């Protein structure tokens, strides 16, 4: 990974060894959490798998919003495109191998990312937000219109993924789907960690902090963001593909403004600009929602709203962001 060059100046530089090992700790933590959740809630695997799919969407939002500073309320377009790509591959082209379906999802997400990026990046501030909303609504309408391909508002059904590696079937208990989800999450998370430390990741953080400065050093802000949008589409598309496989149905809601807004809310709850924040925000939001909506199916929205307000008041950097900040201050003392 890192070459140790004692002869070079780099060898004398105080290298932040902490962060590299933290990467591995993070991956281990995800795996550990996955196992703990499996043991604690063996009967909730369907929900947990859905959470993983949405985690990918929120990670994808984090890539453009948290890392690059592009606010979006239309990111479900990428997620839904992935879900429909995987679903259509299975339902219309007989591509039922789960890995191939995930690949189709990633490809669909990337294409949607490119299209979204081309439009959304033309705006700034509020205009950008509105462009992203327009995009997701256009995608939604297009999917509604193309009912012969997408099933329209009835949803795309008849998605029957074949067993994973020919062995593990996707059944009612959802163990296979959960396992596949965790494996994909670990891979995606590992790659995104690498990405966030790469030169490209640095450039993106630079763009968020001062795009004019980035342009003044000769880098193209637009091209960089577009590239990030495509990567973001890949990630969201994998999540969408996973959802198509695990639920075996794709609905128009996966291309909705509502889902887009929820994803952004989850990200902000967890803490923007950090991969952990994206995961924690999604898990907290969705498990909390599941809990309160089961406890009181009729009036849970109020409690949900109170949670959001509470986060702003008491953890304005998001749950992870605030925790990290407190830890940082504690370490400095």
């Amino acid at each position, binding site marked *: 990974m890192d070459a140790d060059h004692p002869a070079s100046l780099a060898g004398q530089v105080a290298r932040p060894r902490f962060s590299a090992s933290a990467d591995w700790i993070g991956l281990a933590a995800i795996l550990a959490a996955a196992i703990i959740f499996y043991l604690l*809630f063996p*009967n*909730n*695997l*369907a*929900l947990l*798998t*859905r959470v993983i799919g949405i985690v990918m969407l929120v990670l994808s939002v984090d890539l453009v919003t948290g890392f690059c500073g592009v606010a979006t309320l239309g990111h479900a377009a990428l997620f839904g495109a992935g879900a429909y790509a995987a679903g259509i591959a299975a339902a219309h082209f007989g591509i039922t191998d789960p890995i191939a379906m995930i690949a189709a999802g990633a490809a669909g997400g990337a294409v949607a990312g490119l299209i979204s990026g081309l439009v959304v990046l033309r705006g700034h501030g509020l205009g950008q937000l509105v462009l992203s909303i327009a995009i997701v609504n256009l995608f939604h*309408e297009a999917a*509604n219109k193309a*009912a012969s391909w997408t*099933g*329209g*508002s*009835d*949803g795309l*059904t008849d998605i*029957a993924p074949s067993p994973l590696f020919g062995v593990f079937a996707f*059944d*009612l*208990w*959802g163990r296979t789907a959960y396992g596949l989800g965790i494996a994909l999450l670990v891979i995606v998370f590992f790659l995104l960690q690498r990405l966030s430390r790469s030169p490209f990741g640095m450039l993106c953080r630079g763009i968020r902090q001062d795009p004019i400065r980035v342009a003044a050093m000769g880098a193209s802000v637009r091209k960089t963001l577009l590239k990030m949008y495509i990567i973001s589409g890949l990630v969201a598309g994998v999540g969408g593909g996973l*959802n198509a496989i695990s*639920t*075996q*149905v*794709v*609905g*128009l*809601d*996966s291309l909705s403004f*509502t889902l887009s807004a929820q994803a952004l809310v989850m990200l902000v709850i967890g803490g923007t600009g950090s991969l952990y924040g994206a995961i924690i925000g999604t898990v907290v939001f969705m498990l909390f929602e599941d809990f309160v*909506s*089961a406890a009181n*199916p*009729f*009036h*849970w*929205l109020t409690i949900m709203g109170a949670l959001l307000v509470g986060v702003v008041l008491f953890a304005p950097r998001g749950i992870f962001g605030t925790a990290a900040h407190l830890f940082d201050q504690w370490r400095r003392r």
Partner: protein
Amino acid sequence: MKRMLLAAVAAIALSGTAGAETIKVGVVGPFSGPFAIQGKNFKAGIDAWMALNGAKVGDDDVEIVYRDLPAANPAQAKALAQDLVVKESVQYLAGFYFTPDAMAVTPLLEQANVPMVIMNAATSAIVTKSPLVVRTSFTLWQTSVPMAKVATARGIKKVITVVSDYGPGVDAETAFSTTFKADGGEIVESVRMPLSTTDFSPIMQRVKDSGAEAVFAFLPSGPTTLGFLKSYNENGLKGAGIQFLAPGDLTQESDLPALGDTALGVTTTFHYSVAHDSPENKKFVEAARAAIGNPAELSFPSVGAYDGMRVIYKMIEATGGRQDAAKAVDAVKGMAWESPRGPVSIDPESRHLTQNIYLREVAKAADGTYYNKEIQTFANMADPGLAAAK
């Protein structure tokens, strides 16, 4: 904690002595969000049934487990159903307001060994997706075809259809158009408008310009119907004598107080009016109104839920409380009873309800409230949609 433990011990002890089981029924519906009123009606129908018939079948207790699904979201529907089956060990799945949600769950049923009783979702094809599906609501074909007959009978020759651009809307349009054309009528234009439409004036202008004698409309029940009917009146269509034809979703009872005089005289075809005159319905309405709290909120999903519970009770009885989905479904095939909506029976082949469809007119009662007054009956309608699909 201690109390919970005690309760658990007590529960085990009780079940041991009595030999009775708790049979869980998972109900998925929109209990919050924009369609909360429909979910509330599910619950009212279920509560009414249990209030009138007890929470026990034989020795077995029946427990309802509610899950909220605020808007059509098939992926979440499936996750919820999976959780209900795996975690809550429900023996029956019921509810389902939206078609895509019901569709998403059907592939699970066989493996889960769970019958599904649909209390609303109204697209014909759902029952074909699994032999374990039984539906106690209606289909859009069922409610739209009679309207075409009414139009022909009234001597209307030219109709424009205006529907919301989504599955049920397209269903209603096809059902009406096919029937109307077969009877020699002419569809001058078919307009599909996005679900999000709020200002209907331009649509009404189009209707006016089309030269049709009547407009056949379908929109999902709720806020938009108000705007639609108002536009119909205010843009002078009513005045110009263009007749308004629609399935009963547009004048569901819970919307009537808001629609007020706007809806007066509007005729619709539907399977259930809260004002249906029968002793069975009186009993039901009384119980259901008590359950829902605000009597004005009671409308059609409640009757689907009420009859759904009747079917589920029959299934529990037939299986003796044991989990056997195929046997349970077999037991209700051909089942016939007097529902609050009128006489109904379950078609053994399609597992869908054969029922009367009524032509109704919105009228004002003596106490100033509005109701759907039944003026004509189309008896024993099976689902024409399935026949058409073949």
